[in-house]
Structures are given as structure tokens and as C-alpha cells.
């Protein structure tokens, strides 16, 4: 800490602070346009000029000047105020004064500073800018006429997002912000640039002319898409969520959001929301009322025993899932599961065996504290973009080493000095085992590793994973595997990240075991910045496992429930929020099974493909209308509160399950709070939690790790079928599950599925971008548009799985690799 004087006040500040930081933490406000606490100092706007006694005669930018011991700073002398007024006069000279129609009005730094400094006239005369406004995309409007060239958008897109869509073009008075060759913006549309723009140059188009900023009520919430658990501020007016509002002090991510979080909110107030219960009468779904619908359901449930089964979406709150489970137990059935079963297997099976618990020990906060990140699948960026930002910042700002093991290149591969080992699809588990073998062979293993249960058998099994043999199977070189293993083992702190989810079937549990084995053998557990982080797919995937909402003790898992429906052993199926017809493997099989189901109940926000097949459809609430807790992928438990009143006659899933428990003769808990109290009393790691303890940013549920080695199984390498391409499914950046189809923003940017293939394959097969290709596998055939990219290796094609209109599960059978033929 250093001592200095600011405006006559004795203050202290950390050694590496700038004058601006030192003033801010001591409650002294220095005006600024170009500074953002998340970005590197830039010193462009000259609003933060101050005087320093020791540097008399000069005006010093506070945001770029480091403090020194005994510094005497004046932030508002008459000369300084005059200089700032001049800066504002010069900015306002070219800036259009169209504040009445500017959406930034009321939330504009330039407007506020002009007001603060009473700049009500201008001594200069010049014409306004005449730049063309970029309306080329549906989400972000770029009006360079209002720009003050603070460069925040350019810098955030580089330093945090790592996309680099924007740059300074030309120089001097002609400088402006734009894209290469003056093209329209064509990027990830995360809106980070919009969030930091101090003026109305970058605006969210979906919010244009919807409401004045000051008329919005700001409601804090947690994003309802992926498992990252980003905090959101919803801008609400007249019971409508009209926008998301940037708050740089919110969450571990400092308000950073991805396209889904920022622009995917429209599903909440969508016209397509279900508002009344529907009951099938004479073969048609007809409007009904809650009494009738619940009565029918209760009569199907009562005493039904194992003939009734349930599948839930991990988007429900912890309280709802626990209540749902109770309801099923009251009906006499243990057949309940979520996320197709395999999507949570890494936690519910893999980590249970490796760590003795259903969670990974590390948190998102470890990413920036690590020395080496090993990312399995470049898809980690697409599945969890804000975690991707954390990786970007770790690599770019903290110099963390990034190693990637993936079946394709990806955005993360382009980070400075990132090394991507591209292996044949589906072979990552074998490579991780070979790495463990290398660590053991080269005496790089942790000293106490022989004491870990299962070591002897593990060591024996590793004999079958010689790096040379595995390298050949996996399309890598043994040297690469050895180098990767030794740099992982030698790093002081190393963190492994891997995504799981419904689009990544096949070997989730084995992958979790292999990752855990590797972390244990290299001694990477139990240290800050080190360990394992499993990126689970939905906002409450971790919670659903923590609440035990999955098959145990011989009960049917999700896919077995579907089989049971087909076989007639399951007569009543209650699907809460899940859309298996689109998101589970093998469309034809799921459709036949749901057709066979005697009685299908679906609670949903929308008339999904699955809901359309139901006998009773219950309209339920989105995350913005309910209360409860959700658990993010790193076991951060967060409290959500209603931001708006319920839409139409919709009820929360909590109310639905509570009503049904009542009808089944039980006593339902009155409020989510009382169920949360029960969770806090019973669920391991949630002890002593309460709504008030969770606060705004939530609390991490403790993870008690008891490491054990799990013997790896030899797996036969996926043998290529001649003349066929290997199809892998996954997540598109703009989507998460099937819900994002109802968020207009994601659909504007990525409205339909596609098949991504390598340039080499495209050239050989004579496919061009956007060609409509017929993709055929053993389980079916479908048409998809071609996307030719440089990131795909030859022989591999990729398709995202989110789209109900033309679901990829028509050709995808649920194995890690599907062999397909592709023709024009």
C-alpha cells in the first residue's frame, strides 16, 4: 500500500494502482469516458486529467498514471475543470445532439458529463459526422456519428471476447471504428461492445424505442441458459422483460454476457407462451382449466407405481426438482431422470466413483488463477461462452498456458500460443489414459499417489495405454502426447475443463474418470487454480444431480424410460420442460415411444414438438417469474426471485407439483423457501445455506473430494467406415438446449441447423457454402446447409443439435461418432 493525498485527503491504495483507481477506491470521483475496470488503461478521452504536485505544470491522465508514495493529486482545480470543459466542447462539436431519440439518453456518459460540467454552449463551429449507420445485422446498431473514439468496444472485443471484430480505421480527424474493409458487423453478437459503449454509438436493436432507460425497473436474476450461472439484470416495464442491463459490478464475470444471456431474453414475454392448460379431447388439445387438468393427472398418478415415469429439464429450480421427486415417490415410482441420462453421467456416475461425490472440485474462479489450462473439446467455448471469456483473459492477460485436446480446432485454438492436438473423434478418453501412463513412466506422478485407493489396479490397467499405440489409434504422434502429459504434470497449477451435455453422448462417465485419474496422478487436486471443472449444460444441471433427480438402485434412466414407453411398461409419462423429440438421440425411436405412451403429460412454456404429442399440457413459468435456487456448474448456488408476474394462467412447476402432492394425499410444502430449508438440512454441501446467505452472488456448495482411481476400460477406436464422414454433434455458440429457439436474438443470428465441414472435404466433394446437402446415417436422413470452415479436420463433420424444425437426431443415434454419407 502506498500513501498519497488526493484533493487534500490522506489516502492509501495498493502499489499497482493508477491515480484513477486510488481515487475510486477512496470514494473520489474522477470523470472518465474511455476507462473500464475490466480493460487495460488506454488514456484516450482526456476527461480524467488531474494535476500532480510533483509534476507541476502538466495535466496528467489519472487512468494511465501509476501512483507513487507521497503523491499529491488535485482532481478539480479551475484549470482542470476548464480542460475538461474543452474536451467536452470538442466532443460535442461533431457529436449529433439527437439525445431525444437516442436510446442511450438517460444512461449516457457523455450526456451526464455535459450536464455535470454545464457545457451549454460551444465556442467552435464544425459540421457533424456523416457516417452511414450500420443496420446490417438484427442485434447491434452501429452509429459512428455518435462515437467518441474511446475504443472500449475495440478493446473489449479483443481483450475479453477474443473475437476482434472492431478496429480503429483511418487516422486523425477521420478516425472511426469499424470492421475490416468497411463490412457490416458479423461476429458472435455477445453485445459486450454495446454494454461498454459510453454513448449511443452501439445499441441493442431489439430494445430500440421500447422504453426510456429511466422508466425500466431493474431486476436482478440469474441467466436461464447454460451452466455458467451468469448474473443478469433484467430491464422490466409493464410486466415485460424489455432488455438486459449491463452492470459491471455484477457477478464473477463483471457483467459480461454472451449472445444468449444478452439477447436471448425474448422468450420470457414471447407471444408463443402457453397461457392456459390444455387437455386432449377427441384427439385434439383443447383449452381447459387447472382444476380439470390437475384432476386428470392426479387420477393417472394415484397408485400407478412403476408404470409412471418422469423426465425433467435441468432448467427447473432445485426446489421444483426435489418436489417433483417427492411427487413421483408418492405415486410409487422411482423412475425419474433428466438430461437424457447420459448428459449427467460425468457427475452422477463418473465423479461419484473418482471423487466420491457428484461434483467437480474446482470453480470458474480457478481459471484465471491457474498456470496451465487443459481444455477438452474446443466446444467449451460454444457451450459456455462466458467461461470462454475467462479462458481468453487467463491466456491473454495472465499468460496462462493453454493446451487443447479436441476433435476439431476452435476459437480457443487461436489464442496466443495455444496448442491444439486434433485427435480422431471419440478418442479423448484413451489419450487421457495414455497421458496418465506417461506421467507414471516418467516419474512425474505426485508423491502420495500410491496411497490413493485403486492405484495398484490403475497402474496395471495403464499397461494397455502405451502412448505409441494410442497415438496411432487417435491420429496423434506419441511425442505430442508425451509433451502434453509432461507439461501438464510439470505445471505448478493446472486445471482441466471439459463440457458435457446432451449433444455429447457416449462416454461422459469414462471421460470424467479419465480426467479425474489424470488430475489425481499429477497431484492437481485441492489447490487453488488447479483441479477439474466439468462444464454442465443447463442452468441447473448440477442442481438436478445434487437433488438426486436421476435413476438410482435399478430404477429406469431417461433412455430406459423411453424404451419402457415403447414397450408399454410405462403407461404414464410426465415430462417437465424437456423436449426429447428434438434433443434426445434417434428421433424415430423417441417419436414411436411417445406415440405408444398411453398418457403423456407435458409442462412447458411453449407448444414444443414434444408438448404437441401430449394428452395434457400445463403452462408453466420461466425463470423470470419464479422463486427458488439454481446451482451453476461449479456448484455456485444462487437465489432467483420473480422479476415479472406470471404470464397468463401459467403456474410455476413448484405450484404444479405441490398441487399434485396435495391431490395424491400428501402435504405439500408451502413455499420454495421451506423446501430450500430442507435442502440446506439434507443435501451434502448445502448445509447452513439460506436465501439471505446466498445474497446477490450466491454461495459455493462445498465439494468433499475423496479421490480414488477408476480402472480405465480399453475402448476400441471408432473404426472409420469407408467413404463415410464422421459426424459429431455439439452446441452452437448462439444456442443452448432447445429453449434458445424461442429467444429471438439467437434465432436472428443462427436460425437453423447446418453441417460444418472441412475445406478439403468440401473441395473433394465439390460442395460450396450454403449448398443443401443430404446427410444419411444408419438411422435416417436429413437435409442441412453446408458451412465450410478452416477449423474442421478432413473426414469430420459437425452439426449443432438445437433445432426443432429439422432436428439432427433424425440422423444421430447417440453414439459419440455417427458415420454418415453426405451428398448434394
Amino acid at each position, binding site marked *: 500500500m502506498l500513501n498519497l493525498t488526493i484533493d487534500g485527503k490522506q489516502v492509501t491504495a495498493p502499489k499497482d494502482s493508477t491515480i484513477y483507481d486510488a481515487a475510486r477506491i477512496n470514494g473520489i470521483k474522477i470523470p472518465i469516458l474511455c476507462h473500464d475496470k475490466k480493460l487495460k488503461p488506454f488514456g484516450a478521452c482526456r476527461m480524467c486529467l488531474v494535476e500532480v504536485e510533483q509534476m507541476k505544470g502538466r495535466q496528467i491522465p489519472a487512468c494511465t498514471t501509476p501512483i507513487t508514495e507521497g503523491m499529491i493529486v488535485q482532481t478539480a482545480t479551475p484549470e482542470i475543470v476548464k480542460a475538461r470543459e474543452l474536451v467536452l466542447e470538442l466532443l460535442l462539436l461533431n457529436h449529433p445532439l439527437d439525445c431525444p431519440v437516442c436510446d442511450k439518453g438517460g444512461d449516457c456518459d457523455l450526456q451526464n458529463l455535459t450536464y455535470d460540467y454545464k457545457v451549454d454552449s460551444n465556442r467552435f463551429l464544425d459540421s457533424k459526422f456523416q457516417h*452511414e449507420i450500420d443496420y446490417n445485422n438484427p442485434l447491434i446498431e452501429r452509429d459512428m456519428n455518435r462515437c467518441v473514439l474511446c475504443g472500449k468496444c475495440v478493446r473489449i472485443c*479483443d481483450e475479453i471476447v477474443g*473475437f*476482434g*471484430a*472492431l*478496429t*480503429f*480505421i*483511418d*487516422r486523425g480527424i477521420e478516425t472511426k471504428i*469499424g*470492421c*475490416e*474493409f*468497411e463490412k457490416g458487423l458479423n461476429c458472435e453478437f455477445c453485445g459486450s461492445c454495446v454494454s461498454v459503449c459510453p454513448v449511443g454509438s452501439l445499441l441493442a436493436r431489439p430494445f430500440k424505442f421500447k422504453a426510456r432507460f429511466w422508466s425500466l425497473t431493474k431486476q436482478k436474476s440469474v441467466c436461464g441458459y447454460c451452466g455458467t450461472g451468469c448474473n443478469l439484470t433484467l430491464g422490466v416495464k409493464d410486466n415485460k422483460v424489455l432488455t438486459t442491463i449491463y452492470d459491471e459490478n455484477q457477478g464473477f464475470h463483471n457483467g459480461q454476457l454472451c449472445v444468449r444471456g444478452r439477447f436471448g431474453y425474448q422468450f420470457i414475454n414471447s407471444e408463443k407462451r402457453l397461457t392456459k392448460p390444455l387437455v386432449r379431447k377427441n384427439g385434439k388439445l383443447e383449452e381447459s382449466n387447472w382444476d380439470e387438468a390437475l384432476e386428470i393427472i392426479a387420477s393417472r398418478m394415484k397408485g400407478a407405481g412403476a408404470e409412471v415415469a418422469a423426465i425433467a429439464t435441468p432448467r427447473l429450480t432445485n426446489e421444483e426438482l426435489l418436489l417433483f421427486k417427492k411427487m413421483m415417490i408418492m405415486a410409487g415410482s422411482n423412475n425419474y431422470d433428466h438430461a437424457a441420462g447420459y448428459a449427467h453421467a460425468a457427475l452422477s456416475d463418473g465423479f461419484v466413483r473418482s471423487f466420491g461425490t457428484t461434483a467437480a472440485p474446482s470453480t470458474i474462479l480457478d481459471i484465471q488463477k491457474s498456470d496451465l489450462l487443459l481444455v477438452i473439446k474446443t466446444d467449451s467455448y460454444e457451450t459456455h461462452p462466458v467461461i470462454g471469456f475467462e479462458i481468453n483473459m487467463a491466456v491473454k492477460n495472465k499468460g496462462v498456458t493453454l493446451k487443447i485436446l479436441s476433435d476439431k480446432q476452435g476459437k480457443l485454438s*487461436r489464442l496466443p500460443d495455444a496448442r491444439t492436438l486434433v485427435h480422431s473423434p471419440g478418442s479423448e478418453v484413451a489419450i487421457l489414459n495414455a497421458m496418465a501412463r506417461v506421467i507414471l513412466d516418467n516419474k512425474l506422478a505426485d508423491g502420495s499417489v500410491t496411497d490413493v485407493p485403486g492405484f495398484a489396479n490403475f497402474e496395471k490397467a495403464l499397461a494397455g495405454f502405451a502412448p505409441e499405440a494410442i497415438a496411432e489409434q487417435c491420429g496423434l504422434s506419441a511425442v505430442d502426447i508425451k509433451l502434453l502429459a509432461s507439461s501438464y504434470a510439470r505445471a505448478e497449477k493446472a486445471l482441466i475443463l471439459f463440457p458435457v451435455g446432451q449433444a455429447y453422448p457416449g462416454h461422459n462417465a469414462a471421460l470424467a474418470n479419465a480426467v479425474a485419474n489424470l488430475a489425481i496422478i499429477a497431484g492437481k487436486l485441492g489447490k487453488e487454480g488447479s483441479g477439474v471443472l466439468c462444464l454442465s449444460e443447463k442452468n441447473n444441471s448440477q442442481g438436478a444431480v445434487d437433488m438426486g433427480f436421476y435413476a438410482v438402485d435399478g430404477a429406469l434412466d431417461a433412455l430406459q424410460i423411453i424404451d419402457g414407453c415403447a414397450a408399454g411398461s410405462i403407461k404414464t409419462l410426465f415430462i417437465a420442460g424437456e423436449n426429447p423429440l428434438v434433443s434426445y438421440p434417434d428421433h424415430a425411436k423417441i417419436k414411436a415411444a411417445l406415440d405408444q405412451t398411453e398418457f403423456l403429460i407435458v409442462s412447458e412454456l411453449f407448444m414444443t414438438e414434444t408438448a404437441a404429442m401430449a394428452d395434457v399440457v400445463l403452462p408453466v413459468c420461466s425463470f423470470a417469474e419464479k422463486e427458488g435456487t439454481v446451482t451453476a456448474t461449479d456448484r455456485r448456488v444462487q437465489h432467483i426471485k420473480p422479476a415479472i408476474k406470471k404470464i397468463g394462467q401459467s403456474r410455476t412447476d413448484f405450484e404444479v407439483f405441490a398441487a399434485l402432492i396435495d391431490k395424491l394425499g400428501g402435504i405439500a410444502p408451502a413455499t420454495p423457501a421451506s423446501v430450500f430449508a430442507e435442502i440446506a438440512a439434507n443435501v451434502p454441501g448445502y448445509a447452513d445455506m439460506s436465501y439471505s446467505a446466498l445474497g446477490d452472488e450466491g454461495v459455493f456448495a462445498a465439494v468433499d473430494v475423496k479421490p480414488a482411481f477408476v480402472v480405465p476400460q480399453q475402448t476400441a477406436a471408432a473404426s472409420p467406415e469407408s467413404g463415410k464422414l464422421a459426424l459429431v454433434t455439439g452446441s452452437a455458440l448462439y444456442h443452448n438446449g432447445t429453449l434458445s429457439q424461442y429467444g429471438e436474438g439467437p434465432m436472428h443470428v443462427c436460425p437453423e441447423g447446418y453441417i460444418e465441414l472441412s475445406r478439403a472435404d468440401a473441395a473433394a466433394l465439390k460442395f460450396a457454402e450454403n449448398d443443401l446437402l443430404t446427410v444419411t446415417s444408419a438411422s435416417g436422413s436429413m437435409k442441412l446447409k453446408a458451412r465450410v470452415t*478452416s477449423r474442421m479436420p478432413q473426414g469430420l463433420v459437425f452439426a449443432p443439435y438445437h433445432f426443432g424444425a429439422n432436428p439432427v437426431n433424425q440422423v444421430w443415434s447417440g453414439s459419440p461418432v455417427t458415420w454418415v454419407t453426405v451428398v448434394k
Partner: protein
Amino acid sequence: MSKAVAQQAEEQEVIIDLAKANAIIDKYIDLPGNLMPVLQAVQDSYGYIPQVAADLIAERLNVYPSQIYGVLTFYAQFHLKPRGRFIIRVCVGTACHVQGAQRIKETFFNLLHIAHTETSADLRFTFEEVACLGACGMAPLAMVNDDTYGKMTVQKVDEIVAKYSAIPLD
């Protein structure tokens, strides 16, 4: 660089053989801070920076395309559209101005119909106004590539245009 110019650059994008650009990138790929030398060598080789070459450089050097465009528009030395075989520079600095540079400029325009930074359709001439060529004693002054012409007159403009128009383009 106006939008119109960028569009023009795009329209003029004929099939560009990227072999030369690839060879240049190969040469510099391991050099730290290689963007400027690569851009300069590519411009030397093609006479300007074709957009497809900029895209290639972005991909192979792992630099954002936007960042390359920022560099290209920041430095006056880079050109985004094909340039003429002969670059005519007419000084309009103070000394040349008082000696009648305006008429010299107009005469070139009347003969070639190209204004500041423009290039003739046959890619023979590019015309540029410059602020000073550093030889004010010879005002008014013009240059064609590396040849200097002092004490310019309207008549000399005719002669210069005739002289360089007679040289066959390769």
C-alpha cells in the same frame, strides 16, 4: 478510405494468385512482429494489398482481419486498390502553391481525368497531390516515380504525359 473506395477495391478483385503471398508469409512466419514486413512485401509484390491477401495474412498470422485493416488504413504507404505503373506526384505545398501548382494539377486532370489518389483505368497512371517534396527551390514541382521535374509549366505537363504514355506496359 471511404466506403466507395473500399467497394471499388472489392469490385476490382480479380482472381488473385495467392502463391506469392503464401511464399512471403512462409518467409516471415516465425519472425516476431511480422505483420508490417509481410504487408510491405505483399504490397511490393502485388502493387497493392488485395483483400483476399489481407484475409490470408489474417488467417495465417493469426491476426484479426479488422486489425490488419486498421494498420492498412493507418499508414499512407498501403494501398487497397491497384496502383498505376507511373505514380505522378504534384506538390501543392506553400512554395509550389504560390508558383502555380494549382494549374499544374488541373492540367494533369484535364489530360488524364484522374484526381487525387485515383488511378487510370488502364493502370498506367496514379495521381497524387503531396504537401511537400522537399525541393522548394525548384517550385512548382512534380515527380513521376523517382524522376523529378522542377520549374513545371503547363507545357511540360503535356510532355510528361506523352513521354510516359509511350512506354509500353508490361
